[in-house]
C-alpha cells in the first residue's frame, strides 16, 4: 500500500537532489543581482519602447518556463497514472503549482507591458489568449488538488493529461480565430546586443524555478510520507486514545 522507498534509495535520491539544489541555488543567488544589473546597464534601450522594454527580460523567460512547468506537470501526471508511484505525483504537484505562479507573473507583467506597448491592459492576441487559457487549466488543477479531498490526486492527474492534450488544440483554435480577424501586432525583432542578457535572464530565472521545484517536490514528498505514516499508524491502532 505505502510505497516508502528503502532507506538507501531514499538517501541516494536525496543526495542527487541536494547537489542539484545547491547548484541551482548558487546560480540563482549570484545570477539574479548580476542579471538585474545587466538588464539596466548592460543592454541598449529599445528604439520604440525605450525603458519599458526592460520588462521583456523578466516576462519572456517566465513565459517560456511556464510552458516547461506545464509539461513537467503533464508528463509527471502521465507517469503517475501509469505506475502509481507517489514520487511522480509529488513532481506533478510541484510543477502544477509553479505553473500557476509563473503564469500569474506572465499575465501580470504581460499586461503591464501591453499597457506600455499597445496602450491597453489586455488584447485578445494569440499568445496572450493561449497563455491565459492554459493558466486557467492549471488553476483548475490546483483547485482540484486543494479542495478535492481524498482521491483527488488521480483526478488532478487526469486533468493534467487532458490539459496537455488541450495545449495544441487551444493554440490552433486561437491562432485561426485571430487570423480570421487580424489585428496589428507589435513585432519586435531582438537586437543582437540584447540576446546575451536575455539568455542570462532565462538561465537565472530557470535556476530560481529549479530551486522552487526541488523544494516543493521535497515538501510534497514529506507531506505524502507523513500522511502515509499516519494511515499506517491508524491501521495499527497506534493513534487511538
Amino acid at each position: 500500500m505505502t510505497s516508502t522507498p528503502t532507506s538507501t534509495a531514499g538517501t541516494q535520491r536525496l543526495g542527487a537532489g541536494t547537489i542539484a539544489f545547491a547548484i541551482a541555488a548558487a546560480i540563482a543567488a549570484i545570477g539574479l543581482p548580476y542579471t538585474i544589473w545587466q538588464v539596466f546597464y548592460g543592454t541598449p534601450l529599445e528604439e520604440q519602447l525605450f525603458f519599458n522594454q526592460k520588462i521583456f527580460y523578466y516576462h519572456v523567460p517566465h513565459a517560456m518556463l511556464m510552458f516547461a512547468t506545464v509539461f513537467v506537470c503533464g508528463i509527471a501526471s502521465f507517469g503517475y497514472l501509469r505506475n502509481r508511484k507517489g514520487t511522480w505525483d509529488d513532481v506533478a504537484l510541484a510543477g502544477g503549482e509553479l505553473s500557476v505562479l509563473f503564469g500569474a507573473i506572465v499575465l501580470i507583467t504581460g499586461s503591464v507591458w501591453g499597457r506600455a506597448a499597445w496602450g491597453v491592459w489586455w488584447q485578445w492576441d494569440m499568445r496572450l489568449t493561449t497563455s491565459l487559457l492554459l493558466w486557467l487549466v492549471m488553476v483548475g488543477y490546483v483547485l482540484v488538488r486543494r479542495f478535492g479531498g481524498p482521491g483527488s490526486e488521480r483526478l488532478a492527474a487526469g486533468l493534467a493529461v487532458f490539459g496537455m492534450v488541450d495545449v495544441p488544440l487551444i493554440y490552433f483554435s486561437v491562432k485561426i480565430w485571430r487570423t480570421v480577424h487580424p489585428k496589428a501586432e507589435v513585432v519586435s525583432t531582438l537586437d543582437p546586443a540584447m540576446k546575451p542578457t536575455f539568455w542570462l535572464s532565462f538561465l537565472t530565472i530557470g535556476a530560481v524555478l529549479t530551486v522552487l521545484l526541488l523544494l516543493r517536490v521535497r515538501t510534497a514528498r514529506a507531506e505524502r510520507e507523513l500522511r502515509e505514516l499516519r494511515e499506517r499508524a491508524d491501521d495499527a491502532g497506534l493513534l487511538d486514545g
Partner: protein
Amino acid sequence: MSTPTPPEAARRAAGGAAIAPDALPGAPSDGARSARTAPVSFVRHVGAVAWKDLRVELRSREIVYTMAFFAALLVVIFSFAFVKDQGVVAEATPGIVWTTIAFAGTVGLGRAFDREREGDTMRALLLTPASRLSVFLGKSVAITVLIAAVSLVVVPLVTLLFGAPLFAHPLPLLILLVLGALGFSLVGTAFAAMLLRVRSRDVLLPVVLYPILVPMFIAGTKGTAALVADVPDLAAAWYWVQFLGIFDAAFLVVSMWTFESLVIE
C-alpha cells in the same frame, strides 16, 4: 421515484458470463483486451449502457425537462442582457447558443451521475461483464443525445427571440451542434465519473471542464458566427466542423485511456 438501474445491472451481470476477475476495481484494465477480442459484444454493451440511461430518462424525463427549461431561461436572460435600441444584438447569437448549451449541459451531466451515485449503481455498472470502455462510451452517447435534445429547444428559441438566421444553413449547423455535444459529453463524462466520489464535485465539475472545452467553444461559436453572418462564410464553417472533429477524436482517445484508470469505485 425508483430508477430501474440496479435490476438492470444485476440482470445483465447474472445473465452474462461470470464476472471477469480483472473487471474488479484496482485490477489492470480489461477494456482494451475485450474490445479487441469481441467487437460485436463491445458495441452491444455500449448500446445497452446508453439505452439504459435513455430509458431511465424517457420514464422520468427529469433531466431533459429541467435542462430544457433551464436553457430556455438562460436564453431569455441573455435576451434581456443584450437588448440594444429596442432590438437585440444579432452578433451575440452564436455566443448565446453555445453558452446556453454549455451551462445546460453541465446541469444535465451532474444530474446524470448523481443518479448513479444516489442509487449506488455505478459500482454495479462497473462490475458487469461490460468493459469500462463500453460503460464510458455508453454514458457519453446517452449524454450526447440529451444535449442534442436541448439544442433542439435552444436553436429555435434563439431564432425566435433574436431573429438570427440560424436555419439558413441547417446542415453545417447541425453537424457543429452534434460534434459539439459529442465533445462536451466525452470530456464531461470522463470528469463527472472521476468526480463521483470527490467532495464539492458540483463546483469542481465546471471548474475543470470549461478550460478544457475552450477550443470547442471557440470552434462552435466561430463556426456558428460564420453561418449567421450577413455574408455567410461556408468555408470557415466547414473548417470549424473539421476542427471539432479533431477535438472529438483527440479527447475520445484520452478519455478512453483515462476513464479506465481514473474511475474510483
